[in-house]
């Protein structure tokens, strides 16, 4: 029981930690950790979401945030944009220049991030400045552990290709 509380505390302190990281951090065996997590999930104290090749663990009450953040980090360009915004708020032009992307591609991804509520937009003189609306540490942790499959990487490139052609802005 003490061990289970220890696991629950680790997940509560670091929402979005991965199974692998938690096992390493607490020095637990895979089977042992799996058993306790199953119990905690059954009790509704924690929940997990698999995205890419990793399973992320969250404490109860984090459902909506987890859903939004995991969708937000599911494409490579959005991960790069979020990492850039962790440093400081930026406008679309700065983001496009820093990442070597076309304006329409950045515009598409910023719209998606806005819809997900992961960033907020504020008009400053003639440009719109984007700021993260979630804990940067949590976002950085999720991105650090994200491992996309090869198919996902190819699909991400296709999304960028499709968003960079056409009418743009």
């Amino acid at each position, binding site marked *: 029981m003490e061990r289970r509380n220890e696991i629950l505390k680790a997940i509560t302190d670091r929402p979005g930690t991965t199974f692998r990281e938690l096992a390493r951090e607490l020095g637990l065996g895979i089977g042992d950790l799996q058993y306790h997590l199953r119990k905690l999930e059954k009790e509704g104290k924690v929940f997990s979401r698999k995205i890419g090749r990793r399973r992320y663990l969250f404490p109860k009450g984090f459902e909506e945030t987890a859903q939004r953040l995991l969708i937000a980090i599911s494409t490579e360009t959005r991960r790069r944009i979020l990492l850039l915004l962790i440093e400081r708020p930026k406008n679309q032009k700065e983001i496009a220049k820093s990442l070597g992307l076309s304006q*329409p591609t950045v515009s598409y991804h910023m719209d998606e991030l806005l819809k997900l509520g992961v960033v907020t937009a504020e008009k400053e003189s003639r440009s719109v400045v984007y700021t993260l609306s979630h804990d940067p540490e949590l976002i950085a942790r999720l991105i650090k552990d994200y491992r996309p499959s090869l*198919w996902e990487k190819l699909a991400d490139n*296709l999304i960028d290709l499709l*968003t960079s*052609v056409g009418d743009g802005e």
Partner: protein
Amino acid sequence: METLLALLALILALALAGISFIAYRKSHLRPALYLVIAFLLLAIKKTIETAKLAAWIERDVELAVDILEVIVLALLVLSLWRR
């Protein structure tokens, strides 16, 4: 050799359809959906073309293949044109 190349084209078309489908699921971009349809049609076209080796369906196959070719090309144009 001909069959091998046809098989390779078929595998590539299916892989591209899969990639386009993942892209569509992630982004809900309509052009990605057009690409899924286009690559699936291309796979069907290739299958029919390979089946052409059986000479008895040759005439019907020509027509089906030509129609599919036009649809595939139109979908590719559509996917680039309409964002």
